[in-house]
Structures are given as C-alpha cells and as structure tokens.
C-alpha cells in the first residue's frame, strides 16, 4: 500500500507540476501589455524622462477626464515640458510603484526655478486649486485674471485669456499631441533623447493617466515543468499499472505481512468461523489426543518424512522445516488446543473440499516436499490434497497448533506460492471458495513464518523450531486434505504413512494424488475428514508428544518430526550434524512464536 500511495502521489505531483507549467504560460503568464495608471490628482500631469520608454516601445498613453472635460496629451522634450509647466502645481509620474500603478509625485506650485516671477507662484497656486476642484466656469473667470500674469510675459497677451488651467494645445514645444473631450490617446514610439509627457485637463478636470506598453512575454517554465510532470505521471502510471497487472495476474509479490498471522490462533479460537463439523472434529481431536499421542502415526511419518526431509534439507532449510513440521506436527500432539485448532482448520477445508481440496492440497504438497512445493506447489497441492493429503493434514493439524505456525514456515517455501494462489482466484483459491478464508489465514500465518523460517531454519534456535512447527500447522489446514500430502510429498513414501495410519486414502492418494486422484478425492476427503480426527487421535497425536519435543529441538522441525516417530533416525541425524537433542521447551517457544505471529 505505501508503495501505491507513493506512486500515486508521485503521479498526482506530476499532474500538479504540469498544471503549474501550463498555468505559468497561461493564467500566470505576464500580461502582453503592461498597463499602469495614475489616479486623478492635479489637472496637470507630467512624466519624468524615461517613463515613456519605461515598459516598452511604443507607449500608448490614455488620459481620461470625468464628464467629458477637454484633455490634452502632449510629448515634448523634458526641458520643454518643464518649461511649459513652469511654477504651476502639477503631478509628476516618476515611474512604476507596482505592475499596474504609476508612481506619482505631487509638485507644489512655485517649486520650479523657471518661474517667471516670484510673485507669480502664489497666484498660480491659488488659481490652480480652484480650477482643479471647482467647475471651470466658476473658477476660471476669477483665476483667469490671476494666472496668466505669473507664468506668461506681458508680451503674450493671448495666453492671458486662457482659462485657469493653461492650454498647451498646439504649442510649438510639442513633438506629439492628442486632444479630446473626456479622453485622449497618444502613441509615442521611443526616440532618442529625454522626452516627457504632459497631460492637462484644460477644463480644470484632473486627467486619469493610463500608460500601456507592449511586453515581450516569455514562458520559460512551460516545457520544463510539463516535461518533468509528464515523466512523473508516466513513471507513476507504469508503476501502478505494473502493480495492477500483478494483482490480476497473481504475479504480484505477496504481502504476507498484512494478513496478520495471529489468525492461526484465531482460527481455532474463533467460534464463529467454525462450522459444526469443525467443532465436532475439534472435540474429536481433543478426545483423540491420547490416541494421537499414540505413536502409530509416528512410524508412518517417519517413513514418509525421512525421504521428504532429506530433499528438504537439500533444497532449503525452510523446506526441511516444512516437511519436518508436517511430520513433527503429526508426531507432537501435545496441545489439545492446537489439535482442536488444527482440526478446526481442516474441517473447513473439508467442507470446501471439492474446491478447497485443491487449495489445501497445494499446501500439503508444498509442505511435504518443499523442493517441489515452490515450483510445482500449486498443481501438486491439489492433487495431493485430493489424494492422500488428508492423512498428513490430520497428522499435522492435530499435533500442534504451535506447529501450525511453523507450518507457515513450511509453507514459507511453498506457502509463498501457495498463498498467492489463495489470493489469486485463478489458481487454487477459486476452487477453494469457502476455504479462502481459512486458506488465507493459513497463508498469512505461513507468510510470516516463512520470513522467519528461511532465516531461522539454518539456526537451531527455538524460534526457528516454532516456525518450523508452524509450517506443519499451516499445513494442517491444508493437511485436512493434506494428509494425503504427507503421502503426496513423499509420493513414494507417502503411501507408507498413509498406510500406517490405516488410511486407504493415504495409500491411494499418495500415488494417485500425484497423478490423478482428484476423481476419487472428494469421497476420499470426506473419508479423511471423518477419519482424520480419529486417525489423528489415534496415530499422530500420541506418538507426537514424546518425540516431538525431541524433534522440535532439532533445527528443522522436519527432522524432529520424523524423529519423533522415528527417534532413532532423527537422533542419528542430529548427531551427524552435531546438534543437541532438543527438549520439549521448543514447543513453548513455538507458542511464543505463534503468538507473535498471531500478533
């Protein structure tokens, strides 16, 4: 899940990045035209040199006045504009205060040096103010008498007639000019030199100045971001797609962890899932404990296990554990609970048998022959289940719940594969409709153990033992059918155990299971189901207890298990390997491990 979440988030992030890239070139793209305005202030507005060329070329200046008042726009040399404005109060645009605002500097009257006469400036201010605020008509007349005098020499009498606000229209100073009522627009291509703009509301109205420049807008972030985002999306998509594909195909890597192995115990503990049959079987199993304790089985396993074990060892420790577990499980029926659990497991399987049989067998097969299990696990399992699985299962299950976990180990080799099969409908799971729950449980159990098993198996540690034991239990579920498996694994040897256990099924299954038992399996299974408990009770349990301890201690439960039944061999094996015989303690450890697993 976390992987999926991560990949998904990467994909989302990629989309976001793409979005950012696109947005940078669209929504966030800088305007093609830079437009800045200056609010209405003085009736005379000028611009500082350079402002006209501020944002590009050419500049479009628009001046508007309220009420359709006449307005004049003109461009002249900086010096000319300053000279014309003279000492009058005016607003000077000095630049941009923001992307859309012009910085305006209010210049009070009289400040300019060009004022013709000192006395003129005050008059100019007085005239300018009324003109700016009041209506031209009212203020113009009184001011008219005042204004002209200051700024204009006596020689030019014409200017004296001007309104409160002097009219720059058609002055020889201007290089460009635009006039209008209520608004005027002027386009000024940049030229060498220092040019200024002047806008005058000749009627006394304060013009609102708007300057716009064309901008060369680049979108440097568009493609880099889009490409980066696309890559992210593609990567995420590929990962997710692969994940999905694996899910469907079943090739997905098993995620055993989530399954929560604890279920093993739960299986036994949970009353709900248990069917009546299961319950009965459980009881039988309990009652049968003593019987199970009885060794007879042991013998059978011994024969079977040995062969199984050996190959297991050869291949992998885990495998060995599995096999051992299966056998040991059968041998060690120490805990009644375990037995019940195991029994419970199997029962379900039985119910499902027709379908479930397929699934379980697989496990069984794996358990028995680890080597084969991994590869041929699925097919063999079914067969095995159908055929002789039952006996083995019975053996495994009843014996030790603890072992059940170990079974997981056994499975570990096989389980990994087995589980997937469970999860994945296509394989065995489909068939084992009812089983799935159980299987899955088993699988999960197995899963964890396997992890441990591989590592542990090599080590003689108790924990490993438990794991090994678990596998056997894990098998147990399978085992229900597996009993056959016990035989199956050892196809050759299986018959032996089966026979020992007195199961015709076992005998038959063993061989047929490998090949074509299926036809007969259902009936056989049923028989097994019924028989198992009994069988378990009689054969496996009893002998198991005693030998199990010994066997369990062994690194590989497999060895122990078989050893339990055929103590001499196991001991011999241990001696050969310089391993000390293990006490019953391991089971306790196993329990611990199981609990862990459960957790």
């Amino acid at each position, binding site marked *: 899940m976390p992987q999926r979440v991560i990949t998904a988030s990467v994909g989302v992030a990629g989309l976001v990045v793409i979005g950012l890239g696109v947005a940078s070139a669209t929504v966030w793209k800088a305007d093609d035209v830079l437009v800045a305005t200056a609010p209405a202030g003085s009736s005379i507005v000028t611009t500082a040199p*350079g402002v006209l060329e501020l944002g590009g070329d050419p500049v479009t200046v628009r001046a508007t006045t309220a009420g359709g008042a006449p307005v004049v726009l003109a461009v002249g040399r*900086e010096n000319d504009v300053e000279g014309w404005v003279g000492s009058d109060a005016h607003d000077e645009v*000095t630049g941009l*205060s923001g992307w859309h605002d012009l910085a305006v500097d209010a210049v009070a009257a009289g400040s300019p040096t060009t004022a*013709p006469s000192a006395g003129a400036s005050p008059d100019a201010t007085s005239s300018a103010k009324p003109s700016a605020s009041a209506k031209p008509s009212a203020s113009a007349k009184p001011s008219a008498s005042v204004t002209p005098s200051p700024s204009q*020499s006596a020689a030019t009498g014409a*200017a004296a007639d001007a309104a409160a606000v002097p009219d720059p229209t058609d002055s*020889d100073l201007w*290089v460009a000019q635009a006039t209008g009522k209520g608004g005027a627009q002027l386009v000024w291509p940049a030229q060498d*030199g220092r040019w200024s703009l002047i806008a005058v509301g000749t009627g006394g109205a304060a013009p609102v100045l708007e300057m716009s420049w064309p901008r060369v807008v680049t979108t440097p972030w568009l493609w880099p971001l889009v490409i980066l985002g696309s890559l992210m999306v593609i990567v995420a998509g590929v990962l997710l797609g692969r994940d999905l594909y694996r899910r469907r195909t079943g090739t997905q890597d098993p995620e055993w962890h989530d399954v929560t192995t604890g279920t093993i115990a739960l299986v036994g503990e949970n009353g709900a899932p248990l069917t009546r049959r299961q319950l009965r079987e459980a009881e039988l199993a309990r009652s049968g404990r003593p019987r199970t304790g009885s060794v007879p089985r042991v013998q059978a396993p011994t024969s079977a296990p040995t062969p199984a074990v050996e190959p297991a060892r050869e291949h992998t420790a885990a495998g060995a554990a599995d096999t051992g577990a299966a056998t040991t499980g059968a041998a060690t029926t120490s805990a009644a609970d375990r037995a019940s659990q195991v029994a419970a497991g199997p029962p379900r399987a039985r119910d499902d048998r027709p379908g479930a049989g397929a699934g379980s067998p697989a496990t069984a097969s794996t358990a028995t022959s680890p080597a084969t299990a991994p590869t041929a696990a699925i097919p063999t399992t079914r067969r095995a289940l159908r055929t002789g699985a039952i006996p083995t299962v019975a053996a495994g299950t009843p014996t030790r719940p603890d072992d059940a976990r170990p079974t997981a180990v056994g499975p570990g080799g096989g389980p990994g594969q087995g589980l997937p099969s469970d999860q994945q409908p296509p394989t065995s799971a489909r068939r084992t409709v009812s089983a799935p729950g159980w299987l899955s449980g088993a699988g999960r159990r197995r899963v964890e153990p396997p992890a441990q098993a591989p590592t542990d198996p090599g080590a003689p540690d108790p924990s490993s033992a438990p794991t090994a034991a678990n596998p056997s239990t894990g098998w147990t579920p399978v085992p229900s059918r597996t009993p056959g498996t016990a035989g199956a694994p050892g196809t050759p040897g299986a018959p032996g155990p089966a026979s020992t256990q007195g199961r015709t099924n076992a005998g038959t299954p063993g061989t047929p299971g490998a090949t074509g038992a299926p036809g007969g399996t259902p009936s056989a299974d049923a028989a097994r189901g019924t028989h198992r408990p009994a069988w378990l009770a009689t054969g496996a349990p009893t002998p198991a207890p005693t030998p199990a301890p010994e066997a369990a201690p062994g690194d590989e439960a497999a060895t122990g298990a078989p050893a339990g039944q055929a103590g001499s061999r196991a001991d011999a094996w241990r001696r050969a390997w310089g391993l000390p015989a293990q006490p019953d303690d391991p089971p306790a450890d196993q329990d611990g491990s199981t609990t862990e697993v459960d957790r």
Partner: protein
Amino acid sequence: MRRRPVAMTGSAVVVALVLGACAPAVPTPEPAPAPVVAPAALTPGQSSRVLEDLGTVLAAADKKLDEDLLDPRVEEPALSMRGAEYVRADATDGDRAPTTLPTTAAATIVPRTQDWPRTQLVVTEQPADLQAPRILVLRQDDPRSQYKLWGWSRLLPSTSMPRTAKPEVGSPVVAPDSDELTVSPQDAIDQYADVLTKGKKSSHDDAFEPNASRDEIEALRSRNEKAVKGSGTYDESYTPEGDPVVSLGTIDGGAIVVGQLTALAKTTLTLDGATVPISDKFYQALSGKKTAKKSFVRTSTDIVVLYVPRKGSDEKMSVLAFESVITAAKAS
C-alpha cells in the same frame, strides 16, 4: 493545533517568497543621459510646423490687410512693420503690396538652448518674383507662447550665408557681450548703427565690408539732402533697439547677429514759407497730412543681420541682410 497555523503561515510565506522571487522586477525609468550640450531647441519638424503656421497666419492677414490677424504668429517689431505695410497697401489700393514673405525654408539656423526666449533664423526660398530671399526671425519669448515672427530681413545681393550647423544639431547661442568675436554682438550693432548714421565719417567705417544696402541708404540720403538744400536740413539717425535679438554661432567660430535699428529721417524746414508736400499716400496715411510746414519725420524699423567673425580673424564684419520698413511718419 497551534503548530498547524504556524506551519501554514510559514509555508505560505515561503511560497510567497518563492513566487515573489520568480516575479520579474518592476521596470524602472532609464532615461537617456542628460545632454552635455543643450539640444537644438526645435526639431526640423517643429520648425517647419511653425513656418507653416506662420504662412497660414500671414496669408490670412495679408488677404484682409488686418494687422490683428497677425497676432498669433507675429510680434513686435514685425507686427509694426507688417502693420505699416498693410497701411501702405491699403493707402495705395494695393499697388504697394506688403513684402512677400515666403515661409518655405531654404535653411534653418536653430539655437541650441534650453532657455527662453529662443530665436531661430530661417532663410527662405527665393520668392516667386525673384526678390531676394528673406531671413525670418522667429522668436519664442516664453515656454507658453508660440514662435512668432519677430522680424524679417532681406538677404543682400552677392552675399552668402556663413556656414552654420545643421538644424538637428543647432547652433550655439552667443551672448550679446561675448568676447569670442572680433566685436561683441552688442557692439557690432552699435557700430553699424553708427556707420549708417555717420557714413564715411564713422570710426567704424572700415570695420564693415561695403554692402549694397548701405550704399543705397547713403545714396538716398544724399538725394534727400540735396532736395532739401537751401530750404532746410535733412538728418538720418540710426539707433539700435536694445540688445541684438539673437546671436547664433557659425561653424567658423563667428556669429550671425540680428539686431533692430530705429531710423529717423527728419526733414526740417528752415526757410519761411517753405513746405514739404506729402505726395505719398502712404505717408499721408501715416501722418494724416498732405504737407509738412515745419518738419517731416519718417520713422523706419530696420532689421539688420550681421556676420561677426571670430576673434583674431582678419575678416571684417559684413551685413548679410537688411530690411527697412517705414512704420511711422509725422508731419508738422
């Protein structure tokens, strides 16, 4: 909960900063450096526009012989000159039409200045009647007034204008008291006035190249003196009116100086019973009389354009253009 708002604001600030860093800076004005030398006061376009406007005004005023119509583009002394011509034209029923003033520039001498008043000289194309080209003096007294025709002068025959800078560049303005010339512009005008007044007797007589206008003036004077001889006296005096209106440097370091002279031609009758008949309708119109019993005074406004060579030059000053228009006549 406490941390979240902090984290939110923090991240917001970071985002804001990042985005802000990405945003380009607001452009700032980058004006061209202020010119070391003042640029030409007028662009060629502006000059031609002024001339065009002047032509329009003159045409309108000439058509009606209305001095008032000249106001937008003509100022003193040209206004008086033109007004007198209108009177003359009116008095003579158009026989003596006002001076033709072409407004098409053959050359323009533009001042390099950032101050007012500003004066530019325009050498016009030769008029259609093959008269001498005119030099128009256009002056802008202050920033809010227009360029107006201050005066005009008639280019003297066989004179060539000294080379001046291109109008786009502009010609330097020479101060009236400049000492970079053989004679300061102010003195040059004064001296020429003295020469005109005193003739050969003037101490500055040899400071000026001989020119046609001066010869004409002296010829006219001697004629008048002869006419009055025995019954009265005839005096002519030329007085400069203030400083020269403009002095623009030429390429060779000299200057073109434009000045205004007021000429008084006074005929005084000393013989009893003698009278001076005022036959000229123009004079009649100006003086309001047909005879002068004691004296008759003509006042003319003269516009003189001098070339003053640079200091150290061996050249003499020369008169480039001269125009005299009788603007008043008084008979008593």
